[in-house]
């Protein structure tokens, strides 16, 4: 398990290009394909049995907070953006049909929660998910979800209750930097409602990560997930 510290800063780091991020060390997270056996339908397990997925193998995570908001920055090299690489992917779709690159952070109170399987009914997790916009299609979006696991035929994800809404809720800003995607999730400390870890100075939370390579038609359970959990500590 790696350790990630959300260091206290005085700047607003919700922008992934903010200069303040240059002073914050990140943690390299190793990723692997989500197990085929965890895919929620027989069709998906069969169709993807011989098809490579989970193409994103690493991401860099870094964190900070300003006493009011937590900032969590993910960056990774995206095959969707890589010149020459996208063309080699047999499933790459164009225009409104394309699947977006996406990323997610899974937050849990303890190591008991199965992060790669989106939690369980006994150990639910919080999922912050960002997806890029699709040219001519759906817009860029961020979701705050509660996860209770994957079972045959269903992914148990539902929108999290949003007590504060607006400024208190999960937000995300993203940019492309060459072949790199950079996304910063932010949300108010201690504003989460429902079964989720407290994000407060002095607290610790267990994190998992997931990435989807849109050009490889990765979506739903067809994704990369972190191989080991990461412990997030929020500096006092």
């Amino acid at each position, binding site marked *: 398990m790696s350790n990630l510290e959300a260091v206290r800063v005085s700047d607003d780091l919700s922008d992934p290009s903010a200069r303040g991020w240059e002073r914050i060390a990140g943690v390299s997270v190793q990723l692997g394909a989500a197990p085929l056996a965890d*895919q*929620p*339908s*027989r*069709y*998906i397990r*069969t*169709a993807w049995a011989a*098809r490579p997925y989970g193409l994103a193998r690493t991401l860099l995570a870094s964190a900070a907070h300003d006493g009011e908001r937590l900032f969590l920055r993910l960056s990774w090299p995206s095959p969707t953006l890589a010149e020459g690489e996208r063309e080699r992917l047999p*499933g790459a*779709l164009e*225009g*409104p*049909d394309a699947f977006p690159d996406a990323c997610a952070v899974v937050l849990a109170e303890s190591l008991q929660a199965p992060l790669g399987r989106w939690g369980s009914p006994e150990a639910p997790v919080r999922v912050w998910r960002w997806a890029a916009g*699709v040219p*001519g*299609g*759906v817009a860029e979006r961020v979701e705050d979800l509660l996860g209770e696991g994957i*079972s*045959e*035929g*269903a*992914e*148990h*994800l539902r929108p999290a209750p949003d007590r504060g809404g607006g400024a208190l809720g999960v937000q995300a800003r993203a940019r492309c930097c060459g072949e790199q995607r950079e996304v910063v999730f932010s949300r108010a400390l201690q504003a989460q409602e429902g079964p989720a870890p407290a994000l407060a100075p002095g607290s610790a939370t267990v994190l998992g990560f997931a990435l989807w390579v849109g050009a490889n*038609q990765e*979506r*739903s*359970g067809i994704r990369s997930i972190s191989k080991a959990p990461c412990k997030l500590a929020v500096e006092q």
Partner: protein
Amino acid sequence: MAGERKGASGAAASEHTKLQHQLGMVFDLNKCIGCQACSVSCKVLWTQEEGAGHQWWCKVNTMPGRGSPRDWEQMGGGERSGVPIPGHLPTREEFGGGWEFDFERLFYGGTGRREALRPKAGQPEWGPNWDEDQGAGEYPNSYYFYLPRMCNHCTNPVCVEACPTGAMYKRAEDGIVVRNEDACTGARFCMEACPYKVIYFNHIRDVAQHCNFCLPRIEQGVAPACARSCPGRLAFVGNVEDPAGPIHRLVNEWRVALPLHPEYGTAPNVFYVPPLAPKPLREDGTIDEGGRRIPIEYLESLFGPRVRDALQRLEDELATVRAGGSSELLDTLIAYEWKSLFGHLTEDPAKLAVSEGSNGGMVVEQVGGEERG
């Protein structure tokens, strides 16, 4: 179906739901003239919203042909011996259509006498019914026939099983395969799994969409718009298991109505009376009474080996009538009484709307909605 959540597992729903009834349809291909009234009545009712321009939940393809989406019969999906077959995800380009036209410029901008009306975004390369009336064969024995296509509301709906969110399910009360669009995440595994490629992606709403058998009409005793609007009286609707209904009799008693591509393994509930077509001509111009214009091998490739018996039954019945006898089967297919096509679904949508003072949430016909004889 917004807001309707039917449990966690789509797969479990399809496998364990005990159906009270199964609605089905029979299209008599000997009567279809390819007028697309079914396609247009469906389009008017269901797929006019943004993102649905390319969607034709009911459409009539010319056969033989590449169809819509282009080459859909080579796209995989379905099941063999209980094992799913990976399928291709059809794209908007393969469906074609949904073009936008600059009506304003041509009609009111003064260029209408110099230019033709063309899609705004380049020259299209495919579209719904792109290969209309091309068919196959050599003159004078060239041939084609029309094939109305829609969701088959299969008994083994592989689309439901494939869905990772449980958004799709088969209704216990009538077997209609529906989708909870609130739970659909636009993952489109259903589109891959469906071997008939009759599910579409709405890129504006990020959901997949397909024929719902005109569910709001069904719930008020009204037949689907495609069937009611058909001027050829070739679309039968009703419960498949009703022994007195036309669907059961045509499929199970007379055995002249067959599923399309039964080898796809999904057990469709839309059936077709195969086309007899005119007899072929010999080189000297005489009629070959023993021959077939449409190769039987081609029809077998569409409807399976039972098509031989179905065609023979139709020819035997025709011979009986020509000899002065009677045929309940042919009388049924002729449908002397229009409402005999619709089983228990004979309500007139226009009258329902009037009696309620509004449409009561029901979608009523906008094409040919009046009662007919």
